[in-house]
């Protein structure tokens, strides 16, 4: 690791150059200019001086006072670098009971009104005429009363949705202040204190997984129940899923439920063409699911 002293030395170099450049012009004044030495006029000198004047504080600014004061933040006994999380969703097991959507709202203090969801369930009905009808009454929280019967049903199923915690997350890329970010353990979070509420990330998310908090006036989203992960628990939606349609665990270790899920199923992700590299992996996903 480069120490602050190295950087300071590097910063000083341009100033030396400026000083070296200044000497010949002095000699011009005195009328004693060594042969072959380049003449530096006032304009050039000022240009160089200005460049150096801008460069020094930028380089100095890299050295933060906090960097010099050693300090380590973090949860006791929890090493984010040792984990890398993902979720598996088996569409073939989802019964659309809505327990996950309810539990998520309770666990994460999400407003109860519709349209605010970290996770929700969509019902897909594919008719024999090829029409695809997707609905999600109140996010599936109250179940799905009354199957649609406008056309003849060819196949129908439920699809749980949530933030995909993308490896290359568009929401993280567009945040102008660095209030949304990916943690070391692979969870995309929002810094509520630092978010300026510009909503840019909400528009950037291709999965519609973000929403604007009506009281806090910041962007909000699924956290994979980060406060549970640090305690070694699974997210609330996984805890209450009665059929095991949701599986949670480490992506890279072999002996986790998620790794087994990914070995035994054909895995797909949502909107793979966007190259967001989601870490929510779907099994038994129908081709009509967007």
């Amino acid at each position, binding site marked *: 690791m480069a120490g602050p002293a190295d950087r300071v030395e590097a910063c000083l170099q341009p100033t030396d150059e400026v000083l070296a450049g*200044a000497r010949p012009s*002095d000699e011009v004044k005195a009328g004693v200019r060594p042969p072959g030495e380049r003449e530096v006029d006032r304009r050039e000198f000022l240009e160089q001086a200005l460049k150096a004047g801008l460069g020094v504080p930028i380089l100095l600014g890299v050295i933060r006072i*906090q960097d010099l004061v050693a300090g380590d933040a973090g*949860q006791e006994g929890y090493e984010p670098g040792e984990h890398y999380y993902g979720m598996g969703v088996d569409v073939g097991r989802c019964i659309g009971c809505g327990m996950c959507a309810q539990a998520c709202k*309770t666990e994460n203090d999400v407003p109860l009104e519709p349209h605010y969801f970290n996770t929700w369930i969509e019902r897909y009905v594919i008719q024999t005429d090829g029409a695809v009808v997707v609905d999600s009454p109140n996010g599936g929280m109250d*179940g799905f009363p009354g*199957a649609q019967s406008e056309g003849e049903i060819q196949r129908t199923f439920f699809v749980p949705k949530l933030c995909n915690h993308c490896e290359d997350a568009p929401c993280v890329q567009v945040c102008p202040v*660095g209030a949304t970010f990916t943690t070391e353990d692979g969870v995309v*979070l929002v810094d509520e204190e630092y978010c300026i509420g510009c909503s840019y990330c909400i528009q950037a998310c291709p999965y519609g997984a973000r929403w604007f908090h009506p009281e806090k006036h910041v962007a909000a989203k699924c956290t994979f129940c980060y406060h549970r992960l640090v305690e070694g628990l699974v997210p609330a939606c996984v805890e209450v899923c009665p059929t095991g349609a949701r599986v949670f665990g480490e992506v890279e270790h072999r002996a986790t439920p998620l790794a087994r899920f990914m070995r035994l199923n054909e895995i797909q992700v949502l909107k793979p063409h966007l190259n967001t590299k989601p870490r929510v992996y779907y099994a038994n996903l129908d081709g009509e699911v967007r």
Partner: protein
Amino acid sequence: MPQQVPRLAVLFAVLVVGFVVARESLVPDTFGDVGHYRAAAVTSIAAREKSYAGHRECADCHDEIAEQRLASHHSGVACEVCHGPGAAHSEYPDEVELPAPRERGFCPLCHRYDPSRPTGFPQIEPVAHNPLEPCMSCHDPHAPEPPEVPEECGACHGQISRLKTVSHHVTLDCTTCHATEEQHKITPRLVRPGKPVDRGFCGTCHDEDADSQADIPRIDLATHGEDYQCWQCHYPHYPETG
């Protein structure tokens, strides 16, 4: 030393100090410690209160019920699915009590028939299935085996039995085609029902020479469909679609 050097040095110093001061005051604490974000945000998100305690914590006290549940068909249904968030109860067991839903409306949240639910998931029609009787009078939610094995296959295979009732195969019993041991009704996944294995089985009714009712559609088993098995084109539970 030329006089512009000390002047510029002062200018540099002002710029440098100004930049450092501006940066210190504008960039929040812990920003950039780990990545392009405030490291303290992760700590504060990690410190949020949880509402769901997790089924392992329930088992610390309610070990007998947990054991019973883990041996049953509800082994995958965590305690808090029915009893609701239990972190407060786990912390103050005497002050906070958790609800135990006993009314008839609760179980159908999962077990009401819905065509979008996966085939084989046990589903009932609440209107027709022992109306007005609370589910718990027959089924123990911690070990939900029915008191007597269901007479109808449709108790679990709702989707198939519904489809069959509107098809020409409505008069056929499921056991006409599926040889089913009694044990299948008790341990459904361990003892599976049989399925027809060749064309000849359908031929016992549908072949030209078959000894069956006159109005049953006939084909010449030797030439019709060539190398295919019947159910590769005709869905036996609703053969009209074939």
